[in-house]
Structures are given as C-alpha cells and as structure tokens.
C-alpha cells in the first residue's frame, strides 16, 4: 500500500513514518509539510492512503480534501485533539487517530484502509467535501481555487462578484478573474446571504461593492459597482437586494 504522510510538524511526520515502516504492507512514497505540498504530491504520486493532519498553515486537512475532490486517496486523519471527529466521518475518512498514536492502533487503522481499498468504497461527493471543510453551522469564509496549476485561497471579502460561465464560476476580485468548476446554486447555499446576493441568473454580488442601482428598462436594472463595473439585475434579484439594504 502506497502511503503519503501530511503533517506540518517534522517530529510528527518522523514518528508516524517510523511506526509505519514496521508494517509490512506499507510503502511510504512521500511526505508533505503543508496543504499545498499535500495536494501536489497526492496528484503526482497517486498514493492509496494519506495520513492527514487537520490543523496546518494555509490549507487545513479538510481543504486539502476539497481541492483533491474525487482524486483524493483513502484518508486517515491524525490530530492532537478530537474536536473534528464528526466532520472527519462526513468525508468518509477511514479512521481518525489521536496523536500520539500507539502502534497497535495505527496497525488497525491501516488494516481498515486495506479493507476499504479492496471493497472500493465510493468517494464522498464534492459537496460533502466542501461542506466538511468549514466548521459546522458557519457559512463559507474563503474559496479554494485551482487556477493554472496553482492553488489560490480567496477570502470572501476580496470577491467583487461571481459570474456563471458554462460549467464554471468566474470569481472577480480586484480586476482578476479566477475560474472554478462549480454550479451557481451550490455556491449560493454556502454563502452568507447577508453579504452575497444572487442578483441575476448568472451573477452573485458582494453587497459591499454596490455603489448604486440604475433603472435600465422595464423590470430590469443595472448594479453599478464601486469600480464602475455594470452588472445586470433581474426583478427577483432587485427585490432580494432591496430587502437586504432597505
């Protein structure tokens, strides 16, 4: 079994690899010290199993899974404290280990992973993954986008508006446009409805960017943004926006 270890602490990686080397079926193919490396190595090495720390700089373990989507290998989470157990099971993690991990417990987890691989359990959906990537009961705070081979972490407050283009969403932020494969309605449910309003079939607006609203024709309006951008607005969009800003 090909294994990838992901943890931002050198010592945590070293003890895990030390114990894993004792297990005959395991081959450690790589180690990653942060979420970006993890995404890159997981795609390059295509491991069967990934040991994934949750709290890491830049990208959390859950966000790594969200970025990998269906390409994610089987996952065993390793963490110091069990506040994430529920979310871990939502993303169909094979197991959830608490550090320091005792070798027999580790061997059992690896055995479970082997069983899972033999049975070929389907991977969780992208929606489940991105839902688990944010703390329960909270709306999305940042968007993860892979654009031209790089991972971008886009905090919501930097987004001006979002436009639907075929199968993609285009996120406009400070003049730049980043594309991500996702549907408008899926994203809409994850956003804070008091900050982002769907003003049109293919536009979601960051309310803070709105400068004024111009009447364009019968039952249609234009949202003028602070930077001068003009976005079309439907009648329902206009009603929703009016309700929000009064």
């Amino acid at each position, binding site marked *: 079994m090909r294994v990838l270890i992901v943890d*931002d*602490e*050198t*010592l*945590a990686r*070293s*003890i895990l690899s*030390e114990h894993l080397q004792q297990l005959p079926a395991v081959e450690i193919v790589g180690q990653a010290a*942060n979420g*970006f490396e993890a995404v890159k190595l997981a795609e390059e090495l295509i491991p069967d199993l990934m040991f994934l720390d949750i*709290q890491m*700089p*830049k990208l*959390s373990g859950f966000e790594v899974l969200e970025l990998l989507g269906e390409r994610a290998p089987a996952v065993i989470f390793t963490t*110091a*404290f069990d506040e994430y157990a529920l979310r871990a099971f939502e993303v169909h993690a094979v197991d959830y280990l*608490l*550090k*320091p991990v005792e070798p027999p417990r580790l061997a059992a987890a690896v055995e479970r992973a082997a069983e899972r691989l033999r049975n070929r359990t389907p991977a969780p959906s992208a929606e489940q993954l991105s839902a688990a990537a944010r*703390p329960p009961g909270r709306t999305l*705070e*940042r968007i993860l986008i892979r654009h031209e081979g790089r991972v971008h*972490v886009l*905090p919501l407050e930097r987004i001006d508006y979002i436009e639907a283009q075929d199968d993609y969403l285009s996120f406009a932020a400070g003049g730049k446009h980043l594309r991500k494969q996702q549907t408008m309605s899926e994203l809409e449910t994850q956003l804070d409805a008091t900050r982002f309003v769907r003003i049109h079939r293919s536009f979601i607006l960051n309310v803070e960017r709105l400068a004024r609203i111009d009447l364009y024709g019968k039952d249609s309006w234009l949202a003028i943004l602070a930077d001068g951008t003009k976005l079309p607005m439907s009648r329902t969009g206009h009603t929703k926006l009016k309700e929000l800003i009064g």
Partner: protein
Amino acid sequence: MHPIFLHRGRLLLYLAVWVVFGLLLAVVFVFGGKAPVAWSLEFAVPIAVALGLQSLSFWYVVQQMPPGDTPVGRMAAIWTIAGLVSLLVWIALAYGWAKWLLPEEQQYSDHAVGMLPLLIFAGAIGISLAVLGHYLVGAFQRSRNAERRALELQVLAREAELKSLRAQLDPHFLFNSLNSVAALIGNDTVAARQMCFLMANFFRKSLTLARQQAIPLAEEVSLAETFLAIEKVRFGDRLRTSFDIADDVKDVSVPPLMLQPLVENAVHHGVAHLLEGGEVCVQARRRESFLELVVANPCDPDRPPSRSTGVGLVNVRSRVETLCGHRASVDVDASDTAFRVSILLPAVSSQTAKS
C-alpha cells in the same frame, strides 16, 4: 435623588425624628415663651417638619464635599454659609406660618415675645444635627460600598485565574508536545529528555504562578520563554523568537499569566499559519512611570477567521483592568500581515508591592 426617598420606612422614621424635635420646641414655647399649649403644638410641629425637609438638601452638599477630600477650612466656610442660608429661609417660613395661624395683629404680638432668639437657637441646633446625620449616613454608605467593591474585585480576580488556568491546559499544546516527546525518544533521547524537563518546568511554573496575586516581570518572561522553547521543538525552524527586556523593568510587579496567553496567541494564530513561519517578539521597557509590554508577530493575510483569538486577549484585558483600573491599557494593532498587542501598566516594583 436623595437616597431617603427610595425607602418609605426610612423617610417616615426621619420625619418622626423631626416631629419629636417639634414637640420639644413646643415645650420650650409653653414654658419659656408662656404660649398656650394648642398654639405651640400647632406652630412648632409643622415648622420642625419643614426644617427636616429643608435639611434633606444637605445631602447634595455632602456629595460635593466628601470628608477627607476637602480642606477643613473650606468645609467650615461652606457649611457656615449653607447653614446660615438655611436658617434664614427657615425663620422666614416660621414667621409666615405664625402669621397664617394668627392673622389678628394683637394676638400675634403677644405670642411673638422672645420668638426670634428661640427660633434662631432651635434652628441652629436642628441644622447642625441634620448636617452631622448626613455625614454619618454618608460615611456608613461609603464603607459599605468599599466593602462591596473589594468583594467584586476578588471575584473577578478569581474568575480570571480560573480562566487562565483552563487556557493553560490547552489540549492541543499538551498532546502535540507529548507526540513530540514520543517521536524524539526514537532517535534523539537527549532532546526527548530535554523536552520532558521543559514541559515539567512549564506546568510547574504556571501552576505556582497562577496562585499568586502579582509576580516580578522576570518570572513571567521566563514562563513565556519556556513555553516558546517547547513550541520550538514542535515547529522547528518555523518558530523564531526574540526577547528584549530592559533591566530596569525586570522587577516590576505584573499579574501572573498575563504574558503567556499573548505569546501563545502569537504562535497559534500567527506563526503557525505561515508556511515559512516567523518571529515572535517580546519587548518590555519603562515609559516614565509605566511598564510597556509588547508582543508582536507576523500573520497570514489569508488565515481563516479564528473563533478563539479573542479569548486570551479578553481575559488579559479584564485582569489588567481589574488590577489597575483606568491607569492601565491594552492596545491591539492588527493588520493583514502583522499582529501587535501592547500593554501599559503602572510600574510598581514587586518589592514595594509586597511590603
């Protein structure tokens, strides 16, 4: 508003005292002024009650001049003026009342014999008693308030201590450190041992310090250094530290576990989110009669908004305010890429604080 109006019982008791004063005054009129009994009662009791009501205004004067804060000369002068004004008003009232009771000219002059000196004498006594009474009540209230405030402070301090102890036992810190020890035992036993010593040191120190009211800054700094040394084992090169503690503030008395939570925040909400890590800077120096303590760290502009950054900080702020009131301040300067907390405390040497 005068506190006496808040309780009906108190107001009635107060008025009853003045009725008794009025009865005594009536007796003086009957025996000293040879006035008829009925007239004396009718005249003296209402004006005594009037004097009582009038004297309630002294409460405001007492509020303006708490004893101890006001020079004696000034107090005497103000009370003389207030007393005289009050006396004049009262005598005018008394004459008005007498005239209304006995409108006929001849009877009025009969009973008025010797009334003025008597009224002045009685008024002066009544007013003096009222002033004294107000001071007594005021002093009683102040001592009760002081007691209550002392109790409140105690409760707040205890709460802060509990909170900081709970923060001390941060499970992530404990389990991650144990994981580091487990890892080191395999390939670097000397470092593993060192880590055990550091952890023992840290937990012992924080338990001992938490029980004290105030400690020298040097001890608090040493606790923060131990904490950072443990975290350096975990984070490796990513965590760098710098301490700049001026010699003349090492002895300054500070509330225990004030610096440690700030340093902890700097690591967990700052440096830990940076791929390349960063430096936690602790700085302490004297600014006139104050100690300025600064903890600064870089942070990641894209970091997820944290739920718990505030807790440690709120805790530190409430403790500092409880102990030093308005003479201390906690300032936070947060930008996209850096975080800085600075605390200003009155610099009292821990030797002076103890004695």
